[in-house]
Every structure is written in C-alpha cells, then in structure tokens.
C-alpha cells in the first residue's frame, strides 16, 4: 500500500485514517493497530513540524507485510535530521509538579514500539524505515 499526503496536521489526520482503515494495518489486532497509530502519528507530526518547518511538501508512505510485522517506509523532501541522526528519544524525566514535561515524548514513543528503525538521507529526501510488530 502506498499513500501520499500534504505536510500539514489536518492532512496527517486524513492520511492516518486512510492507512489504518485499509491494507496491512487494518488486519492487525486492536492493540497492535493502536500502537501503529501512536507511532505513525508521531513520525508524521515530526515530519510536518521539523523537516517541513519552513515550507510545505509531501509525505509518502509505503506499507508492506514483513515476517516481523508491517514494514513502513516514510519519505519526505524536507530538511535532514541534525547531524543526519535520529533523536535519541530518551523518556523525559518526571520531576516536580511545576516542572512536568509537556513535550519530548515523540521519539521515545517511536523507538520503544518499533523494530529495525533506520534513517538515510538520500539526496534531497529523508527515508525512514521501521517495522510495526503484529
């Protein structure tokens, strides 16, 4: 399954719904499908808010069945990750009430739930691949 949508948050909602309602993700059990939605939402929001922070573009997603789960490839033509490396994604520390973290959860959620995560900068494109376990 292949899908292309625009890099804005409303289009991300539509793209997520399309990906979850058909193809390999639709066939997943509820818990795995919920995890898939969490991970994909974080990946797409990240592309919109960081790779395409200063301009609009398109996000292309391919889904394929794989022995370990659904293999996802996300391609965009936005800015590369700093140092061409994915964020470490450490879980923000929970401190005092008035210092609770309001962000920084995204890459932790992604890294904790996927397998075979990899990133390449290919010319002017970012290519992120990972496997969503069944």
């Amino acid at each position: 399954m292949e899908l292309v949508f625009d890099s804005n948050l409303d289009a991300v909602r539509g793209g997520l719904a399309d990906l979850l309602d058909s193809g390999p993700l639709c066939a997943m059990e509820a818990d795995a499908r919920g995890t898939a939605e969490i991970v994909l939402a974080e990946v797409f929001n990240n592309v919109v808010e960081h790779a395409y922070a200063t301009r609009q573009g398109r996000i292309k997603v391919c889904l394929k069945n794989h022995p370990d789960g659904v293999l996802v490839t996300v391609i965009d033509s936005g800015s590369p990750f700093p140092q061409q490396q994915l964020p470490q994604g450490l879980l923000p520390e929970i401190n005092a009430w008035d210092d609770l973290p309001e962000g920084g959860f995204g890459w932790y959620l992604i890294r904790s739930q996927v397998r075979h995560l990899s990133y390449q900068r290919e010319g002017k494109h970012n290519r992120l691949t990972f496997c969503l376990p069944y």
Partner: protein
Amino acid sequence: MNITAKAHEDLILVTVGEDRIDAACAIQFKERMRELTQAPSSRVILDLSTVAFLDSSGLGAVVAVMKLLGPDRKLELSGLTPTVAKVFHLTRMDTVFTIHPSLPDGLQKAG
C-alpha cells in the same frame, strides 16, 4: 472544539466530545480547558471516554492544563480508552494523574 463543563459542588466535570486530542487541536484543547476551568473548584475531572486517540502533543496539552490549574487544584482523568491509556502508560504519565476507570458515582450521566 466540542468540550463542555458542568459544576458539581466543589468539582468541575469536563467532557470532551471529540474522538482525538492530537497535534491538530492540542492548542485549542488547552485554550478551551483554560476557559472552562475559570470558576473556582478544588477538583477538575476530565472525561476522556469518547477520545479514541491522543498523541504526544495531546499528552503535552493535558500536562499543560494540569499546570495551569495550579498546585492546589487536582486534574483527574476518567475513562481512558485503550490507545490513550497506552500513551499515558508508556510515558509514565499515568503515575502523575489520578485516573478513574469510569466517572465516580453521582457524576455518571449527570453531565
């Protein structure tokens, strides 16, 4: 954004009528919550039973609302659906909030 509130003595019950709290609506959610919790109360219960999905931006907005309420007012959550509960659990934010499986007695259907 469809969010409504009803006062019950010393408590404000806020009911979210949306199926998502995500990056596309996190700012509106926070602003609406700020308006709805203006009146004084010692507790605020946020009924999330119709919210099927919350992303990290939505989670950040819920945390921000907790901070807005100040140290002496509690934000309690109710009716987390499975995917929403998973986000709270994975980020350990389930240790920060009082979470009710469903609305406490006396509040059900009252809002």
